[in-house]
């Protein structure tokens, strides 16, 4: 089993870390750059990852829409715990995760991951690690719609 259990167990975290993590699951489209503007910060290093819906299905057909489902509550908690653990591991300062659910069209933003740190290495590595954790360890499910037929994905896209 590839799925990581470890980071969803409750971990002792200090209050500072908890407040440094912002996680939101959104039903509606959002503008990633406006969200980052609002998140603010004046850290020496910010790393950001943004994922958008592809125009094609995993097997190369034209995609009509991508449906995203999640297990509300557990999902947010998994991402928060992962973020707190990784901020501490990489000595980074703050993390923002916004993730869409519902029906998304090609080109729409699915996920935004951003990390503030004092060093470029910490920011970039923590951002990449948080994205991987989120893809493999948080209860989200994608269904591709194509010619009016929906197909649940069995696994994630390769890195």
């Amino acid at each position: 089993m590839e799925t990581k259990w470890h980071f969803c167990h409750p971990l002792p975290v200090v209050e500072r870390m908890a407040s440094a993590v912002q996680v939101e699951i959104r039903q509606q489209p959002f503008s990633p750059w406006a969200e980052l503007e609002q998140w603010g910060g004046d850290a020496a290093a910010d790393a950001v990852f943004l994922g958008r819906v592809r125009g094609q299905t995993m097997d190369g057909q034209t995609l009509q829409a991508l449906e995203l489902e999640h297990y509300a509550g557990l999902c947010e908690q998994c991402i928060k715990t992962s973020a707190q653990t990784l901020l501490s591991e990489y000595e980074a300062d703050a993390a923002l995760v916004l993730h869409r659910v519902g029906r998304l069209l090609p080109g729409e933003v699915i996920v935004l991951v951003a990390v503030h740190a004092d060093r470029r290495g910490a920011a970039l590595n923590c951002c990449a690690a948080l994205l991987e954790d989120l893809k493999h360890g948080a209860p989200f499910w994608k269904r591709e719609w194509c010619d009016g037929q929906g197909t649940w994905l069995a696994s994630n896209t390769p890195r």
Partner: protein
Amino acid sequence: MIDVLQVLLFASLRDRAGWSVRQMPLTARTNTAGELWAELQLGSLLAINIAVNQQLVGPERVLCNGDEVAFLPPFTGG
């Protein structure tokens, strides 16, 4: 009163079963999350995650009256 469990299925598991939420009795045959899964007759537990009361657990997790038990197919977010 009989002890009950709240069982949740998501995504492909929900489609396979034809339901998403079901109340089930807590019986001698559903002492653990793994036993409850077997009772549902939805195939192999391989690659399925289990959450009890919004916390990921292993199949050996003992169930109690009122538990929310969710079966989760492989995650594909991000």
